[in-house]
């Protein structure tokens, strides 16, 4: 099997390398990729949409339909992970508790549990690490700054590299940091499953909602210029605000899906223990 794989790889690799004979040289400004529609985007982006970052204006305005389905794809990935893995019924397995004042570990067999209202016992993972002051404090301090930076990245997608996807991933990472530094149950208590599901659908809804508002105002789907009829700005600034609106939708959806995928994959669907 490995020899056959090596043969296939060498054959297809050789074929691809032979095909590079016809490629334009690296860094050629007159290569066919840079000749047709991309100079038009570069020259017209600032005057038509008011957004200097050409990547953002292509992503959210000129090719906005594509980005809407990309957001739908990542939403479907979150849904797929949830539906494949999530188990809701309580597992009848052994649970471990730790008595906080004395540090004694209690092993409760067979699915019975100490009710969570008792303050002296905390539920611990089967692989338990002791409380580390540095990691817990530093990650708790870092989370608001990470989120602030993520909101900065989303909001400044117009003028610097950034945008919805990048900021959304950083927002998701801020919650996963809490899940890794503490444990999964703490992160789920902070950002529950229900609000997570609502937010992932809300992001896609905001994106297609802005497109639908454009249709209701009389133009085509996702033509942000018609938003100038309800917002008191010019047509160019209406396109810029439409781009910001869809980037916010994308950021919300990506954050919720990142957290959903992490929760379900790291705990195998049971949401009781994490990494």
């Amino acid at each position: 099997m490995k020899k056959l794989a090596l043969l296939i790889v060498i054959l297809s690799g050789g074929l691809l390398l032979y095909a590079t004979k016809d490629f334009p040289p690296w860094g050629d400004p007159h290569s066919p990729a840079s000749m047709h529609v991309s100079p038009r985007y570069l020259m017209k982006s600032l005057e038509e949409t008011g957004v200097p970052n050409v990547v953002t204006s292509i992503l959210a305005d000129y090719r906005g339909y594509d980005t809407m389905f990309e957001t739908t794809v990542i939403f479907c990935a979150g849904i797929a992970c949830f539906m494949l893995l999530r188990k809701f019924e309580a597992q009848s397995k052994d649970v471990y508790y730790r008595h906080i004042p004395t540090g004694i570990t209690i092993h409760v067999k067979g699915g019975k549990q100490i009710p969570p209202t008792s303050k002296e016992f905390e539920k611990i993972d089967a692989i338990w690490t002791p409380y580390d002051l540095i990691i817990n404090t530093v990650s708790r301090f870092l989370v608001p700054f990470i989120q602030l930076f993520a909101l900065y990245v989303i909001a400044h997608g117009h003028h610097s590299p950034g945008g919805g996807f990048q900021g959304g991933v950083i927002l998701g990472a801020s919650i996963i940091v809490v899940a890794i530094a503490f444990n999964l149950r703490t992160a789920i208590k902070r950002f529950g499953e229900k609000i997570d599901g609502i937010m992932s659908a809300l992001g896609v809804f905001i994106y297609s909602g802005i497109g639908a508002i454009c249709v209701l105002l009389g133009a085509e789907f996702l033509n942000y210029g018609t938003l100038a009829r309800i917002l008191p700005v010019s047509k160019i600034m209406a396109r810029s605000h439409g781009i910001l609106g869809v980037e916010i939708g994308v950021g919300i959806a990506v954050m919720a899906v990142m957290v959903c995928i992490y929760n379900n994959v790291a705990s195998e669907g049971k949401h009781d223990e994490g990494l």
Partner: protein
Amino acid sequence: MEFLFTHLVAKYNFWLYIVLMMIGLYAMIAKNNLIKKLVGMNIFQTAIILFYVSVGSKKGGTIPIIEHGAGHTPHGIDPAHYVNPLPHVLMLTAIVVSVSTFGVALALAIKIYQRYKTLEEDEILTRIRES
């Protein structure tokens, strides 16, 4: 020989990415463990993304953010001055899709492990044939 030299030196980025693609393809076909196959798929996707982004680069070009000062609009934007933004945009979509497929593939691998108690491909095939 000089012809080969021109092609090899002028387009060495394409050759590097094709080598990376073939490494990923080999891992997907030849490795037995499911997680190693997934890592090979990820390497393949990363090589494709790098390949496309390198197609859009221009010699001496800067990032595709139009230089604008405070309060003056530039006239005469030279497209040869900026790197081609279109492959960057398409590859943003490709990165998001690769993350999604990796997440779902990991979920499927967990389900396979829960059912067959192994992640090696030949053992899984044996247990499928037995049951």
